[in-house]
């Protein structure tokens, strides 16, 4: 089998480092090579992380220029790197930007592609991936037959730390394509200041809550637990009671806390996919047949307006 040549890129420096570690463990043959692309200045944090993560080669298009976020520009630059370095596998981050670039790049390369990938390995020259399907209801194993293949990896996929390297820096001429879109504005989303991905404990509230003011009950419980507050889609997208960074599920955030308490949450497939990796799950719901109970370690059937204050009190008492 010919050696693998893996190209890693993500706009998120953390994720870029994770991709390089993953690439080193997937392509661990003596002749395999891991390339990381960076469009940022050399002093940048991203370059340092890529080096620490163990890339063999750090590729920089020259001139670096202002890093454009136009998908056409990014995908065209990556496409050129795939050609010049004879890349067999491209690893990108499965963020929204990453998936968009993955699609565009796969279109340019006429290559097989997959996103939302949680595991990847090589099997007799084919790329085998595991990812969610059916809005998170099922896990699929898929085989990407042709090469090069484009694979977008979920954040926080664990990989062993390979021995450190001093990456060779390779400057390649930039293809400098003209952008097809122009950024007019970039602004942060309204935020409640939470980062649920790294929360130890989460209290999630759903449509069982009758009005926005009642959030104080949930916040009091969260404080007593040292937990962050999460919510289902309707509370963020429809009611607007909480900002998007609280929203858990298929189209929200994916969480894996030590403790997850779902309150007044029915347990729709699209919600469950966001919390399935939680260690201990408690569900509080007045409907004994709510699907969330099928996914719970501890089930409390009851009215949240009675149970939640009692729980807060019990925690404060001890």
């Amino acid at each position, binding site marked *: 089998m010919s050696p693998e040549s893996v190209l890693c890129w993500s706009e998120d420096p953390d994720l870029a480092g994770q991709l390089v570690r993953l690439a080193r463990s997937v392509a661990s043959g003596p002749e395999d090579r891991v390339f990381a692309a960076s469009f940022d200045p050399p002093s940048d944090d991203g370059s340092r992380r890529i080096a620490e993560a163990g890339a063999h080669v750090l590729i920089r298009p020259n001139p670096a220029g202002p890093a454009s976020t136009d998908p056409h520009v990014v995908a065209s630059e990556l496409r050129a790197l795939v050609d010049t370095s004879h890349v067999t596998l491209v690893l990108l981050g499965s963020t929204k930007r990453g998936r968009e670039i993955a699609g565009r790049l796969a279109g340019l390369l006429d290559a097989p*592609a997959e996103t939302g990938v949680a595991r990847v390995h090589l099997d007799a020259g084919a790329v085998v991936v595991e990812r969610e*399907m059916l809005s998170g209801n099922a896990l699929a*194993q*898929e085989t990407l037959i042709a090469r090069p293949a484009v694979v977008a990896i979920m954040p926080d996929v664990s990989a062993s730390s390979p021995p450190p390297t001093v990456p060779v820096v390779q400057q390649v001429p930039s293809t400098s394509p003209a952008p097809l879109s122009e950024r007019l504005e970039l602004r942060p989303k309204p935020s409640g200041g939470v980062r649920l991905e790294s929360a130890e404990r989460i209290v999630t509230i759903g449509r069982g809550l009758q009005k926005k003011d009642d959030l104080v009950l949930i916040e009091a419980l969260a404080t007593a637990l040292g937990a962050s507050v999460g919510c289902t889609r309707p509370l963020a997208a429809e009611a607007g009671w909480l900002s998007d960074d609280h929203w858990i599920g298929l189209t929200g955030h994916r969480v894996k806390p030590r403790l997850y308490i779902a309150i007044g949450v029915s347990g729709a*497939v699209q919600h469950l996919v966001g919390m399935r990796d939680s260690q201990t799950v408690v569900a509080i719901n007045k409907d004994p047949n709510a699907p969330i109970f*099928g996914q719970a370690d501890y*089930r409390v059937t009851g009215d949240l307006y009675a149970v939640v204050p009692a729980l807060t009190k*019990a925690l404060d008492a001890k």
Partner: protein
Amino acid sequence: MAAPQLRILVAVKHGVDVGLARADRTTGVVALDTAPRKTSDFDRNAVEEAVRIRERLGGRVTAISVGSASAREALRDAVAIGADDAILVTDPAVPVFDTRAVSRVLAAVSRTLGGFDLFLLGEGSSDHFAGLVGPRVAGELGVADVAYVRKLTVDATGVVAEKDLERELEVVRASFPVIVTVGQEINTPRLPTFMATLKASKKEIRQLSVAEIGLDAAHLDPTVRIDRAAVPATTRKQVTITGNTPDEVARTLVDALRTEGALP
């Protein structure tokens, strides 16, 4: 100058109905080929957005689906919401979970139709949820793309679109032709009236084979194979906490969580 008549394409997938798909009891495996199907969620939003744009600016909305004969259902949904034309590309040679094949077909249809100003797709299909097809078609055709759009303004020459990223909102401008992918938050699709549904059921659906759009089977060779799709087994303890009063329930729960180490 844009064409005097806005040419809008919209892609609709007749995907696996995620709510109804059942797994084999012992193996957990979901038979994707025979599972019940329905119109992919975000594609309804794409059709609604297309129809609203036409209602404001004029033009024609053409819905396209790639799939088996049952995909006519998705096209009828699109027509009921307000699409003017419906095209079905049906050919057993198209592996519908391979975004390469589907994208090539959509790109080829658009060429056959003489291009477009605006091509709307879902940002992810409910069953596959890859988020690949829209940007992929854009890459193949070399046109602009804007994905994850929550707000779309169209004028005579192009679009201004607000992208919803994980932690930021990005507003971009792109000229026609442009491909835009949308999610649930962009609009609320109208519920078609009884009359609209009835009319849609009689609407002629233009059927094209891959040969008629200039592709041959080799262009569509599968490059991705789904080896297995299965519902993961649940391993939750499923302990029911009971008590005579909410306070008793709460104390029992707190004790259980402490014992298990879930609380400090």
